[in-house]
Structures are given as C-alpha cells and as structure tokens.
C-alpha cells in the first residue's frame, strides 16, 4: 500500500485534541459527580423503601440500562426542546444526559454495596445507640464504599469513554476534535492513532489513580 504516515498535520491541529481531551474530562467529572449524588440518594432510599419506591427506582435503572446512550443523547438534545420550551447548549444537554445515565449505573453499584454490609456491623451500630442516620453515615456508607470501590473504578473509566458520544451533538470533546481534523486533513489513520493513544493514556492514568485510592482503603479493611 502506498500510505505513508505523516503526523505533521496532526501536530499542527493538536490543540483541537488537547482541548477536546480537557473537555472530555470535564464532562466526565461533572456528570459522574452528579451521578454519584443521584446514585447514592436513590440507593439509600431503595434499601429502606417500600415496594412502590423500589419499583420506580428499579424502573429508572432498567430503562437507562436497556437504551443505548446515543439514543438518550439525541432524545435529550433534540427531543426535549421540541416538546417543552427550554433552550440549552449541547454540552449542558450532554452533561444532563450522562448524569442521569451514570446515576442509573451507580444506583446499582451502591445498592449492591449497601446490601453487602454485614448485618453484624449494623447491629453493633444499633447496640452502641447510634440513630439510623448515624448508622448510615458512620457505619454503612464507609463499609459500602470499600466494598464498591473496584466496581466504581470500572464504572468511572467506562463513563469517561462514554463522553465520546457527545461528538454526535457537536460537543467539541476529544472524539469530535479527531473527526474535525480528519475532515480537514484526511489523515484518518494518524488522527485516530493519536486519539486512541490519548484515550488509552488518560484511561490508564485514571485507573492508576483509582487503584491507589482502593489500596489505601483496602489497607483499612
């Protein structure tokens, strides 16, 4: 084949990729932060609630988990403003979507963690006179966190990669930057090689950081 790799054009437009990566991270961090709040609140609610609330929360989780993210992104960005009079930017729309999406996955992670906290520990919390709220904060959540950390790390990495879907509504994150360079330079192999490397390095860096946190917590088992 007569294809010679030439990265010069990529480096000339590298700011599109670098800026894109930073935006990807920003989208992921904000969405995951909101998702954690959604996940924690719903998981705690779920384990102490009756049938009706449980069914509603399970419905939300099942709905999100069985619909492709890209469809949700379209639905929120194009669908919602059509129905109700509400204007928002593409990045905002994506953050809303990914937050609701990550929330559903995190409910599952947190719920299974909460249910895995040994009953004996809760009994011990009761026996020293802690109120239900104190038992949640000082006994149940710390143990739940340590149980769920490995699963959490995987979910976070996965959600970071999901930010690439934002490119379909022209949010200028990393994948969108790569597409832009491809359209303007036709160096398809080079640009996707570089982009892949950037996802890979960032993903590994995240995983490494999360493993450090895990190890710190595991030491405290």
């Amino acid at each position, binding site marked *: 084949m007569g294809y010679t790799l030439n990265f010069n054009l990529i480096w000339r437009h590298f700011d599109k990729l670098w800026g894109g990566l930073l935006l990807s991270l920003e989208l992921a961090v904000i969405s995951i932060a909101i998702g954690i709040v959604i996940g924690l609140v719903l998981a705690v609610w779920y384990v102490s609630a009756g049938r009706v609330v449980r069914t509603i929360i399970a419905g939300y989780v099942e709905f999100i988990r069985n619909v492709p993210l890209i469809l949700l992104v379209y639905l929120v960005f194009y669908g919602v403003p059509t129905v109700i009079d509400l204007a928002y930017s593409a990045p905002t729309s994506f953050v809303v979507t990914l937050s609701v999406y990550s929330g559903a996955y995190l409910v599952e992670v947190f719920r299974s963690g909460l249910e895995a906290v*040994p009953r*004996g*520990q809760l*009994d*011990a*919390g*009761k*026996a*020293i*006179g*802690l*109120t*239900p709220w*104190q038992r949640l904060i*000082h*006994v149940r959540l*710390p*143990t739940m966190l*340590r149980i769920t950390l490995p699963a959490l790390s995987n979910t976070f990495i996965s959600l970071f990669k999901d930010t690439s879907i934002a490119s379909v509504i022209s949010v200028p994150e990393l994948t969108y930057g790569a597409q832009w360079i491809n359209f303007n330079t036709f160096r398809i192999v080079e640009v996707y090689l570089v982009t892949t490397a950037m996802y890979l390095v960032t993903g590994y860096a995240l995983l490494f950081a999360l493993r450090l946190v895990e190890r710190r*917590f595991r*030491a*405290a*088992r």
Partner: protein
Amino acid sequence: MATSSNNSPALLAIAEVSKSFGPVAVLRSVSLQVAKGEVVTIIGPSGSGKTTLLRCVNFLESYDSGSIRIDGKEVGYRDSETRQRRSERDLAAMRAETGMVFQSFNLFPHLTAAGNIMLGLTKVRGKSNAEARSIAEHWLGRVGLAHKADSLPAELSGGQQQRVGIARAVAMEPKILLLDEITSALDPELVGEVLAVVKSLAEDGMTMVMVTHEMAFARDASSRIVFMADGGISAVGPPKEVLAAETTNERLRTFLARFRASHF
C-alpha cells in the same frame, strides 16, 4: 455478689416475653429478673432461644408479647399495653444504656481499635474527641491492648478484636452488659484472655447477662445460671444447683450429659 433478690427492684425485668417466627415459637412466656451487680449465664442447646432473648433485651429483636424493663423503663415499646413501638431516636437512646458484645466481634472495619470505642462516645454521649480518646485508651488498657489503640481490626487477632469489642461496650458505661457467645468464634487458646476480661468486669460489679457454652466459666463467674430449652426457662438457680449431676430435670440432665461427653 447479689443473688435474685426480692426486696431490691430488679435492674432488668423480663416478664412473660413470647416471640414466634411464623409458626415456630422461639420464646414461650419467658420471665427473668436480674438484680444490679448480678452475673446471669444462659445455657441451653442451640435453637433454645438464648440469643433471641438476649437480642430482645436491647431490642435488636422485637417480641410479640410481654414486657422487658430496664430500671423500670419499658425497652422497645412506649407502653407494654398498647405495644406502640418507640421512635428510632428513643430506641437508640434506650440501647445506649445496654452494652452488647457479639459472637463475631462486629468491629467497624474502617476504624482503629480506639476509633471503634470513640464512635459511640462522641456521637451518642457527645464527648469531645480528646475526652473520648482518653476514655478509649483507659479501656484499652483495662483489656490489655493499650499498645493497639491505633491498629485496625484486620491487624488484630480474634481474641484482641473481641477484647476491643468488650471495651467498646463498657466504655459507654452501660447499666447492663449483654454477652452473646463471645468466645464461640475464637480459637481455643484465645478464649482465656477474653474470659479473664469478663471476670474482671464481674468483679467490678458490672451487671451481665451472657450466653455461653463455657461451662467451667459459667460455674465460676455466675451468680445464677438459667437453662433454656424450647424457648422457655427450664431451670434457674445458683451454678452449683443447676449444674449438679443429680438434677431431676430430665432435659437439663440430657444437655449436661451430652455436653460433658463432647467437651471432655
């Protein structure tokens, strides 16, 4: 040491407590009074309701009928007639008056030995960190673990964990201490160190109700022994009486014979 006294009001008064899990009756009209300073040991075959009874005393389990009072105060219900359950906040306050030590230790794994003891002192008793820390250190000293204050449960042996469990319970200055088969999960060589701590607490006058299979310890440390069978109290009295080989109580004799056969 006080025996079952009729003139001083009982610290713990269990009256006709019954409980069923579905069709299975686990407690059948159990009545028992424990005076201040008494050490009452509950023995009996597994499934006889010993642990359930103990867990009713601090309302880790609810019961269907009857009344349990500590210092004259109904434990789980606002009123034994209407059987209206206390609020969670009330229950927490009631439970803070009893200490409990568990078979499986149940230490909080994310907290150090001192941290385990300090949690109740700071959150329930409202003590400052410094005050709680010094109380924790005092009790860790009492159970021979002063040097392990900053160790996590995972870094301690079973016997050490259980001694922290005892320190966590008594540091709250409970009116009564409940011990639920606290040596059953321990390797035989670690049992002694835990029982020594219990004995020293008994000598201090701590009121205790314990479920145990350590017959020799029960004989030496108890004011009274309660023998439970099929959810009811089948025999109760001073150790010498209850553990006497010539007892006329058929069930008790079978239990003791089987026990001697398997433990000696």
